[in-house]
């Protein structure tokens, strides 16, 4: 037990891998065994991550559950894990979505089950590693590792244009991440020049990197930028996403939208901002980032309007939603940052759920074309209800998660510039438009297509995959206080770096002065 407590992160990290290794020894013919194994370990991964919730202390600054072991002393790379409020939320999101994704593909995957589950579990480890690792080298390793399983998930179990989508996804992300490797190396090297010790330890680097010259920070920022921007994906780099999301199998899309995209934003929050404060708070960069975020928001929403393919539509909607996240990040205010993290979680929940729903339809009809459907709420009432709730959460209806995130983000952005916030609000309106329109086309009206008349409603398994997400959506919408508590300190640290003296401003005097009638009031009346 003591061991478990001190190594919980490693356990959470490697439980899926254990499952994968176990699966290696099960003959490939026994598909159900593999399904079972995969689900057991997916769920186990969730179970072992639950203790974090009770043990994590939100009011304790810095990283927790840290583990630190020798790895490659000759280059100063260590096996260092640890989480703070931000990564804690993302880790939980990953474990939850991971389990759900695995469960969701029980009947969807009929070919090459063994590889499928092995890859899914490995992917899980890779993603968790990205969020947990406190060693830049380790981080990069996980970052790259998780590309490969995803590549196969898309390329083997995807739909028609899977090969194209898969390789596009792989190359796109790789191009970014290799540049990131250079940036990492030069951070590593310049740190050594500064302090004389070679290390990849993020906490150590954090102490020194802000002293880098502005020019150096500038270049480093761009080095990191491409990797993260492509992952998010920010506006001009987003074109891999519709293809990947559309072609991937349901579970793949869920993971992709739910977790993978968060790595980019996580990178911005964890590295770009705190490590390179002068660069990332410089006027040009901030304006540029905000500009492309806003373009992304509007642009994604507009493209959604015309999609004929549900998955593509949802994919583009994530471009729009992630635009909000980056917008919040580069507002560099507490609300912006906190909101963007919360919005990441929300996007994970609602978009993940949307993909699950589409997957359910796809399993029944083997098409994703919107025009194929219509009036589904008659044959599938439960489906319609859950779909409605998720749609609402995705378009930011209060009392559902989406609202909290978007509100907080826009609040923080408004503080910096009213125009930016206004654009964001436009994005929200468009969001309502395309999501409701999608819902109407799919659910309302009378059943036109005979193939849809007797679609079975959701079965127990599908309900089990979706109900947790719905509950989470409501919970975050009604009582988001815990999330804010987890985020308070990490956000404070970051803001103090990029926006020094923010917390030093003098507080508002709470003076309940009785209202006195303004002197010039009468004249004001007489004027008319």
């Amino acid at each position, binding site marked *: 037990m003591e061991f478990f407590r001190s190594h919980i992160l490693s356990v959470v990290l490697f439980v899926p891998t254990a499952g994968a290794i176990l699966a290696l020894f099960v003959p490939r013919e026994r598909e159900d065994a593999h399904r079972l194994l995969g689900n057991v370990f997916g769920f186990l991964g969730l179970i072992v991550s639950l203790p974090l919730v009770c043990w994590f202390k939100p009011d304790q600054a810095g990283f927790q559950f840290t583990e630190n072991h020798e790895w490659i002393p000759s280059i100063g790379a260590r096996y260092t894990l640890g989480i703070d409020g931000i990564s804690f939320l993302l880790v939980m999101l990953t474990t939850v979505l991971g389990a759900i994704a695995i469960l969701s593909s029980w009947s969807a995957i009929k070919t090459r089950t063994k590889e499928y589950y092995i890859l899914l579990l490995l992917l899980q480890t890779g993603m968790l590693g990205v969020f947990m690792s406190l060693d830049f080298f380790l981080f990069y390793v996980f970052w790259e590792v998780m590309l490969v399983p995803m590549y196969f998930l898309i390329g083997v179990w995807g739909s028609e244009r899977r090969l194209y989508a898969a390789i596009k996804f792989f190359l796109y992300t790789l191009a970014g991440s290799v540049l990131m490797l250079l940036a990492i190396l030069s951070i590593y090297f310049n740190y050594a020049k500064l302090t004389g010790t070679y290390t990849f330890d993020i906490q150590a680097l954090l102490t020194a990197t802000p002293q880098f010259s502005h020019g150096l920070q500038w270049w480093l920022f761009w080095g990191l930028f491409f990797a993260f921007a492509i992952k998010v994906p920010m506006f*001009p780099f987003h*074109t891999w996403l*519709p293809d990947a999301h559309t072609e991937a199998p349901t579970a793949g899309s869920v993971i992709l939208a739910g977790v993978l995209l968060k790595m980019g934003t996580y990178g911005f929050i964890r590295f770009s901002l705190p490590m390179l404060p002068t660069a990332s708070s410089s006027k040009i960069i901030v304006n540029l980032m905000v500009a492309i975020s806003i373009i992304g928001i509007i642009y994604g929403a*507009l*493209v*959604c*309007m*015309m999609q*004929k393919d549900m998955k593509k539509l949802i994919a583009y909607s994530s471009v729009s939603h992630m635009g909000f996240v980056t917008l919040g990040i580069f507002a560099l*205010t*507490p*609300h912006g940052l906190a909101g963007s993290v919360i919005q990441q979680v929300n996007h994970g929940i609602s978009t993940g759920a949307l993909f699950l729903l589409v997957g359910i339809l796809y399993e029944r009809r083997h098409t994703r074309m919107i025009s194929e459907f219509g009036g589904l709420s008659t044959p599938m009432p439960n489906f319609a209800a859950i779909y409605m709730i998720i749609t*609402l959460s995705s378009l930011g*209806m209060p009392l559902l998660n989406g*609202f909290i995130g978007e*509100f*907080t983000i*826009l*609040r*923080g952005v*408004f*503080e910096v510039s009213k125009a930016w*916030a206004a654009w964001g*609000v*436009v994005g*929200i*309106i*468009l969001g*309502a*438009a395309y999501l*409701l*329109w999608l819902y*109407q*086309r799919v*659910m*309302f*009206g*009378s059943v036109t297509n005979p193939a849809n008349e007797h679609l079975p409603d959701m079965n127990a398994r599908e309900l089990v995959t979706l109900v947790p997400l719905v509950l989470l959506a409501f919970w975050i919408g*009604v*009582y*988001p*206080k815990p999330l*804010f*508590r987890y985020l308070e300190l990490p956000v404070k640290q970051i803001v103090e770096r990029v926006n020094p003296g*923010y917390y030093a*401003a*003098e*507080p*508002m*005097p*709470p*003076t*309940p*002065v*009785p*209202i006195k*009638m*303004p002197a010039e*009031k009468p004249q004001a009346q007489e004027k*008319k």
Partner: protein
Amino acid sequence: MHIGFFLDHIWLIPLFPLASAALMLLIGRRLPNNAVSTICVGSVFVSFVFALGAVVQLFGLPAEQRVVERILFEWVPAGPMHTSAGRLVNFIADWGFLLDPLSSVMVLVVTGVGFLIHFYSIGYMGHEGGYYRFFGYMNLFMFSMLTLVLANNMLLMFVGWEGVGLCSYLLIGFYFLRKSAADAGKKAFIVNRIGDAGFLLGIFLTVGTLGTIKFTEFGAALAAGSFALGAPALTAIGLLLFVGATGKSAQIPLYVWLPDAMEGPTPVSALIHAATMVTAGVYMVTRHNAIYQMAPFALEVVAVIGALTAIFAATMGLLQNDIKRVLAYSTISQLGYMFLACGVGAFAAGIFHLMTHAFFKALLFLGSGSVIHALSGEQDMRKMGALWGKIPATAKTFVIGAVAIAGIPPLAGFFSKDEILGKAFEHSPLLWIIGFVTAGMTAFYMFRLVNMTFFGNSRVPHDVEHHIHESPKTMTVPLMVLAGLSVIGGWIGWPAALGGSNRFERFLEPVISRPMAAHAEAAATHASAMEYLLMLASIAIALAGIWLARLLYLQRAELPDKIAASWPRLYKLVYNKYYVDQIYDAMFVNRAKDLGTTLGAFDTNVIDGLGVDGAGWLTRFTSRLSIWWDTWIVDGSVNLAARIVWIVSFPVRMAQTGLVSSYALLIVIGLLIFLGYYLHPLRELRTLFH
């Protein structure tokens, strides 16, 4: 501190409907209809009782303590932030409820009228499918509306605000098999969304300026901030909030959704689109009166828009033939009155009219519903007439409602409308004239409606005529109650001029911040003579309207056509609602159609789906554009790069001729290059001849 059971538990008031709504939506399908109706109507009734109890206990308190706030928990503790003044404040949105005179009026109206309408629906919806769904949504609406009303801060209010919007979307689209219904629903939702955007920005600006979103702290914050009168920030807040209000309360230019909203079941129209939801805008403006009073310009805008909407909608109501649409336009116009009141600073009057309007407009809608029920779904007045004897209860109550809205003393409408007109006159005669004319029109079209429906000779088709029947008790009883309220409802606001003491306004004083109230009182006392004149004038014009309607639609039924013939264009113009929808079509839909024909077959869906909202065709165009950009420029460049690499690959391979000699030659060339790299000719030649 415990100041009474009900006051301590105001948070229960919205909870009951929520509970039953959840129940309905989860297991409603398995419940029998009578269970459903018992639970839902019961829950609303219970919350009505709680509300009543709370209000009574509130009265028990001395006037200056009549502000009761109950906080359940911290909802959005987003933490520290900067105000525009650079101060550091801690942003917290509580999940808290506020009961003060203002909200107590609203909560009574909402729960009371709401209960009656629920009760009415039992009968009305009895034969509809999706009974549980209907009541579930209705309860959900009650919950949202009560949250809106009782919220102690802007954000929570916004929750209710969005919630009622959602419910109206769901309820308008209740007959979701009808495409027109679904479209109307979406239209309503998206138009509202535009308004909400304004509200949201308003919230941001308020936080940024005042550093708080709690209604109870506005005064203090305003004082602490020591803003000048008409400070730009406050004006901006006022305007932004008003944008929200126009959306929700169907004012110019965002009123277009309301007439279409009549697609929904009649009780829905009564509850949402007459009595409660649409008045949320007025309530919201009144809630923020502290800010508005510091922003005269914003108030001007409110007043003007209100007045314009009032007369504009009234004229449109003149020639409508769909009974519900007439009421819809009259609702818009009455809301215009309320905003006019707020605009001239007579918030109390606005709320007063809101209350009375709730009574008689709900009555009218339910009445019309009962008529439609009787005529088995017929809504066109040209196919009615001479129903007076056939459905007496409905007819009588309906007429009472009509008289009330026309503003004949001593019925409710008179007091509230008259007060507004009085205040308007003090503010500026022009506004008064507009209101005055509108009053006349109101009287006219209401009695046009009455005459065409209940009197004259029957134009009902025979197959229908046989089974015209009075509605069941569940429907008529609420009508009677409401009729009663429409009669006496105005008396609590009996003006001082008529020897009363305007209790209503006095009651609201703690909420309506002092200066205006004081001002108003002053006005009320100094020119009572003027006031009598105004009263007489408004009564006169009301009567005139009634007489005209009688003349045109009973005695000389041929006249209207003559008039129509003599001013054909005007007639057509008004008859077609000033072609507003057509203009919107011409502006957006047809553009879209041209585009759509070029862009693709299924665009027609898009047009019907989005043509209404201004972005319609633009959206589709840009979205096409961006898709094009996506595939050809962004993606294209990527693929192009790939293509180039692929192509370049070939020459590189072709160099691999397979011929030894050429390989050898390349080796030689390599050597040449190497040596050439070192033997920069000039330098070498110089050292060559030393």
